[in-house]
């Protein structure tokens, strides 16, 4: 495979970007669309004290859930932790800080970070003290809104169906979910992909994430976990 941009690399080569105490953003929804090889690599390297940002904490043995259940995270920013009992347990024991954000607002905060906006205005969850806690309000046309800050991360990890050598990505069905947003919000974005193809072989109209946002591409071996329904 030609590699004119130097973006196609290996799992071992990208491991240098993961370190203790870092902020890590991940694509995926209930583990669907989360990058399995990257998550295993981070586990094996023994990286700790992570701040994880993503839709949910997966299941104990699925997706980002592996890092959570092995207590590698000190903080999670997510919309849901219910499918991973370890997340709730560690939260109650004071070992894991959890910042809950309504799902669509979380997605939009990540998107804002990814497109260079500092914050968004929202009217979601204003009846809930947990959502409004510590957040400023902004008045616009006689209505009050919550200021929801944008989210970025040192590294974003995403999972895609195909990448070309520039890092243009297309996704597979509902495995797209938060991946295109997460891909934009990392200072460094690493895409784990099912298939790497030659430049020019993706239909330009079908590309969902532009390679502009993708720094490194590694091949995937597919998921190595059993799904909750199996």
């Amino acid at each position, binding site marked *: 495979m030609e590699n004119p941009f130097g973006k196609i690399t290996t799992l071992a080569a990208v491991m240098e970007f993961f370190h203790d105490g870092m902020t890590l953003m991940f694509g995926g*929804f*209930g*583990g*669907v*669309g989360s990058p399995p090889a990257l998550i295993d690599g981070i586990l094996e390297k023994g990286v700790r004290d992570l701040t994880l940002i993503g*839709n*949910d904490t997966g*299941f104990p043995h699925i997706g980002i859930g592996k890092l959570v259940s092995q207590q590698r995270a000190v903080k999670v920013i*997510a*919309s*849901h*932790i*219910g*499918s991973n009992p370890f997340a*709730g347990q560690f*939260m*109650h024991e004071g070992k894991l800080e*959890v910042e*809950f954000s*309504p*799902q*669509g*607002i979380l*997605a*939009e905060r*990540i*998107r804002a970070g990814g497109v260079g906006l500092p914050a968004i205005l929202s*009217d*979601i*969850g204003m*009846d*809930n*003290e*947990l*959502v409004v806690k510590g957040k400023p309000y902004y008045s616009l046309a006689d209505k009050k809104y919550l200021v929801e800050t944008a989210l970025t991360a040192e590294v974003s990890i995403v999972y895609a*169906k195909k990448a070309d050598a520039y890092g243009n990505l297309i*996704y*597979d*069905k*509902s*495995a*797209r*979910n*938060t*991946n*295109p*947003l997460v891909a934009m919000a990392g200072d460094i974005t690493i895409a784990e992909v099912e298939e790497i193809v030659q430049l020019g072989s993706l239909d330009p109209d079908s590309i*969902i994430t532009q390679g502009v946002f993708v720094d490194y591409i590694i091949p995937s071996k597919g*998921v190595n976990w059993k*799904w*909750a*329904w199996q």
Partner: protein
Amino acid sequence: MGMAVDIRNQMAKRAAEEIQTGMVVNLGIGIPSLVPNHLPTETMVMFHAENGITGMGPSPSMGEEDENLCNAGGFPVTLNKGGSYCDSAISFGMIRRGRVDITILGSLQVSKNGDLANWIVPGKKVPGMGGAMELAQKAKKVIVVMNHCDKQGKPKIVKSCTLPLTSAACVDIIITDLAVFTVNEEGLLLTELFAPYSLENVVNKTGCKFKIRETVRMIPY
């Protein structure tokens, strides 16, 4: 537990009566997920899933599952004709922009003015709100399908919610195993009863006062 299964389907069937051709509908887990089984085949609905599916179809047959085609609960589904995929921001854009006609969800408590509390039991489960706040606040019609009382026999329809709110004054219809209520600014209106329950049964098991429609429909199934 034949009876229990039956009433779950009766509640789902009642919820299905609210759905018409052309609607975009989001279903929660549990009883709401049974609703599609009770729709007439000629009713053309686009089922919306928070994880980025519009036009979601039924579960695939065994062996046909696709790990990259799952609903928001993580279980395999299919895509109907005309369906499409999008990212999470677009999916919630549809909700906040008011393009979702109906959301059908479960709840822990509903108050007489339609406050919804379905995401947190303090000191117990803290699963997170997921997409419930956006759906409750922005779907055009919010239908709650839930047992009339909790496992301890305490009313789930209450004067004011003791659990943290998902969203205030958002519920339009409550369907329980006993009765159906509509909700508006004036409070609750009982409109229908499931056999064999009487008005007295419902009054005794409800934690607040409610009005009763002049002609109460006895649900015929």
